[in-house]
């Protein structure tokens, strides 16, 4: 897992620049994903504060953007982004790089924090939705390097596929993730999408599933 340097220019760019694929044992390695997974493992195993700082500098500003898009105020977005990264420190031992990329894991943490915050606003004094946490926090699997490489590879392919969805599908997917306000097209009370939004979301998922199946 060595031989990769952290790439701050990529970390700060805000988009994924085209990168030359690095090959090892016939598998394309995504430097970003592998490096972040290594940092989380360093936090888990050695309570490595500089690894945490690097994760913080990359993810906190993105989590903040996410929360702002969901309608959080600037102060709340800043506060929850910090909470999310403190959870990364606290829960690092539960992170399983075969199940999810670090970005995905951070996303679920931020999402759950936002759900809790919204709920506290509605019912002051209400308890956190601890039992609702949707991402399993399974103990890390045995270190199987090939499995991990395949998982990282797949995560990277999925990531680029998400960013190259057809425009109409990309639009509704983005709306689903980033727009918290009730939207006539996307939901009524329960929050479930309607009509054409539904079918576009289905198409997007079918496309990504096909892509993943084709890789196995």
């Amino acid at each position, binding site marked *: 897992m060595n031989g990769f340097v952290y790439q701050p220019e990529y970390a700060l760019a805000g988009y994924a620049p085209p990168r030359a694929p690095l090959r090892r044992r016939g598998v394309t390695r995504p430097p970003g994903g592998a490096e972040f997974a290594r940092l989380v493992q360093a936090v888990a195993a050695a309570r490595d504060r500089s690894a945490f700082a690097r994760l913080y500098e990359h993810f906190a500003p993105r989590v903040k*953007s*996410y929360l702002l898009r969901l309608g959080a105020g600037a102060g709340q977005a800043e506060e929850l982004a910090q909470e999310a990264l403190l959870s990364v420190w606290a829960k690092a031992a539960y992170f399983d790089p075969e199940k999810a990329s670090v970005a995905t894991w951070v996303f679920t943490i931020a999402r759950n924090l936002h759900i809790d915050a919204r709920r506290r606003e509605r019912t002051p004094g209400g308890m956190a939705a601890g039992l609702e946490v949707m*991402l*399993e926090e399974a103990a890390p699997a045995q270190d199987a390097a090939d499995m991990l490489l395949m998982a990282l590879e797949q995560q990277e392919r999925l*990531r680029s596929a998400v960013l190259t969805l057809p425009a109409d599908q990309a639009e509704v997917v983005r709306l689903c993730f980033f727009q918290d306000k009730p939207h006539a097209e996307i939901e009524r009370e329960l*929050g479930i999408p309607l009509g054409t939004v539904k079918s576009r979301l289905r198409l997007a998922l079918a496309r990504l599933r096909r892509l993943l199946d084709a890789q196995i």
Partner: protein
Amino acid sequence: MRITHHPDDSTLLAHAAGRLNRAARVVLATHLASCPQCRETVRLCEAIGGALLEALPPTPMAADSLAHALARLELPAVKPVNAPHPWMLAEGLPCPPSLRDFTPGRWRAMLPGISRIQLLPPNAGEGSLYLLRIAPGKRMPKHGHTARELTCVLAGAYCDGLGEFGPGDLSEADAAHDHQPVSAPGGDCICLIASDAKLRFEGRVARLLQPLAGV
């Protein structure tokens, strides 16, 4: 448990995106607990969330934010609260983990053979959530939906125009969908239901039921 009815992909995506209200989340969590196939879909949807998060342009944090965070790492970790014990839905039937942090309610009769426990009130902005218990072999009054409903079977089974629903099965009904469920013989059918509006009952007896429903 053999599950044959699943939520729509778009519903699972909305769930993974965190945009469903609490009533809907609890019903989906109940289904997901026993459905590896849908858990896999949710994981895929969460990966989409991760990819979108990664691609967002960063918003700078306050200048001293990292220093504050590093200082807070020294604080003792907050111990997670232990999950409350399951309460009993009926004799020999503990509530699923998704219902553990609800206050146990009492079954209230609606009609002979039909009772309910309201878990989330309809007007608190998180959707209406309730348990419905139907005696075996009972025909429910025919009803349609002015909006939408998510139902997960916890025990027993029922049949309607869409098929037979047993433990773990999830049904999504919308405004276009009228149904008249019939509970299976054998044992009580207990369902967990998230609803976003009042049910609309048809027929004279059914209309008498309407105010009782209060859904």
